[in-house]
């Protein structure tokens, strides 16, 4: 009898422990997580497909060809002229002006918050900056039109600065993007290990030397990502330019005159009465595709730059 019980314990106990048990909760969660990831990829693909399909329809229309679109400087749909440059230059103008504000200010704010500010100052300043990011962009649009434009007209003269102009739209867009860049940059700076800062302080470096020559180079990949996200945001920003930058394509490099950006044009055209197979309707998909390609290219270029220049720690 004693022998029998001994046998039972020896043979059965280990076998029981090792057998695979179904963990239903785990499987459901894993399935849900996979589905979420899969679903977002699916949506992205769907968007690209729709953009590509409609854009293709546009380029197949009589009188439209890709080469003319990317080389000519007149966008006049009613006479079948689809040169993208007037829209592209104003998008580039507003983006450039916005980044002129957002990059230096955003970087300075980030360096101040991460390297200089006491914890108390940081915990007051960060929420205030985040409020800037939370203001609806339509409000920024009217801020540009009714606050920034009058100031520009005061400074440069009423006959120089038009009521609608890319300059004020760009400046205000810079303010909109500043918190985005500063908060991403600050995250990148804070991720640089403390030991690296100590190494520099330990050889008698000043705060500025540590911040600019040690911490910033080490955080370069994060900073570049912040700048690229900022530029992409500026290129895609719509409300501010629709309100303040002016209507009607205008091939110009002056920040003081009205000029429609790609996004501004899409808004104006899609706001009107459009039939689904008109050339105007299809043209805005082609423009959307251009926007998409521009931001995608920026992302790829920035990744290559970062890989080349960043200082890898650990």
């Amino acid at each position, binding site marked *: 009898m004693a022998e029998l019980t001994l046998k039972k314990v020896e043979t059965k106990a280990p076998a029981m422990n090792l057998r695979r048990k179904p963990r239903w909760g785990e499987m459901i969660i894993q399935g849900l997580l996979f589905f979420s990831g899969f679903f977002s990829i699916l949506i992205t693909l769907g968007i690209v497909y729709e953009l590509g399909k409609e854009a293709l329809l546009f380029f197949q229309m009589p009188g439209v060809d890709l080469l003319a679109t990317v080389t000519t400087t007149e966008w006049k749909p009613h006479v079948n002229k689809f040169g993208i440059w007037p829209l592209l230059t104003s998008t580039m103008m507003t983006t450039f002006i916005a980044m002129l504000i957002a990059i230096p200010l955003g970087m300075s704010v980030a360096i101040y918050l991460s390297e200089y500010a006491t914890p108390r100052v940081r915990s007051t300043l960060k929420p205030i900056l985040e409020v800037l990011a939370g203001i609806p962009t339509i409000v920024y649009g009217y801020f540009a039109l009714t606050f920034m434009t009058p100031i520009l007209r005061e400074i440069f003269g009423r006959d120089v600065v038009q009521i609608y102009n890319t300059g004020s739209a760009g400046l205000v867009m810079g303010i909109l993007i500043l918190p985005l860049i500063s908060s991403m940059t600050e995250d990148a700076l804070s991720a640089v290990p403390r030991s690296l800062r*100590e190494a520099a302080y330990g050889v008698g470096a000043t705060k500025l030397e540590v911040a600019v020559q040690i911490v910033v180079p080490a955080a370069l990949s994060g900073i570049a990502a912040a700048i690229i996200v900022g530029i992409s945001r500026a290129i895609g920003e719509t409300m501010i330019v629709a309100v303040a930058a002016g209507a009607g394509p205008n091939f110009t490099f002056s920040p003081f005159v009205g000029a429609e950006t790609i996004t501004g044009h899409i808004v104006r055209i899609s706001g009107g009465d459009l039939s689904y197979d008109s050339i105007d309707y299809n043209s805005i998909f082609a423009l959307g595709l251009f926007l998409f390609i521009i931001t995608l290219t920026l992302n790829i270029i920035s990744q290559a730059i970062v890989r080349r220049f960043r200082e890898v720690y650990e």
Partner: protein
Amino acid sequence: MNNNSDHKYVIETHDLDIYYGTFKAVTDVNLQVERNAITAIIGPSGCGKSTLLRAFNRMNELYANSSIRGDVCFNGQDIYAREVDPVEVRYRVGMVFQKPNPFPKSIYENIAWTARIHGYKGKMDEIVESSLHQAALWDEVKDKLHQSGLSLSGGQQQRLCIARAISIQPEVILMDEPASALDPIATLKIEELMQELKKNYTIVIVTHNMQQAARASDYTAMMMLSRDGERSGTVIEFDETTRIFTNPKDKRTEDYVTGRFG
């Protein structure tokens, strides 16, 4: 190499208390660091050894809320005086850390950058070479000066950090457990290097390793938490290393160095 050698001690503390906020981490330390010697600070974990070491070049100030009472004198000058710039203090009193922390720059730049921020100009190649020679690293890295400092092994990285520290010719080098992350061979190299370096520099080293203190140091400060339940560390005995290890006055030191606790 220094113009203050009329002071017998390079670093002296007087009734030094160190606080983190209201917490008193180190209490009432009176210590004299002899010139061109190696002074070891030993004691159990959490007794404030590193905190005390960091007070010698004001590194403790990088932590919020840190403050001191009493004073720390470097060549007779109170380094916590209002008019003293901590950057200048750290220039004269360098530091090597527990975990090797070379800059994520090339081996060459690790030293050149350090020299450059202090206004060294001209023959940078010579400064780099002589610093690496002094840190006994030159032969191992002379063919790859432009590779990242992080491509080196742990022991080499630590010697690079030492080379970096001595490139600007400080008077004192503070070492915070410089070999605790290294294997025994790399540790031995660091210890040999310390013997070489003490001809020109004064070294203060914090170590967990009592054999290391016994082997490598000339003076030893024994730290321990004070017994009054305050959880604050203090130096309970300070003497020549041979005396501390062979004939300690304090029973607690004896227990510690003979391995009875700690």
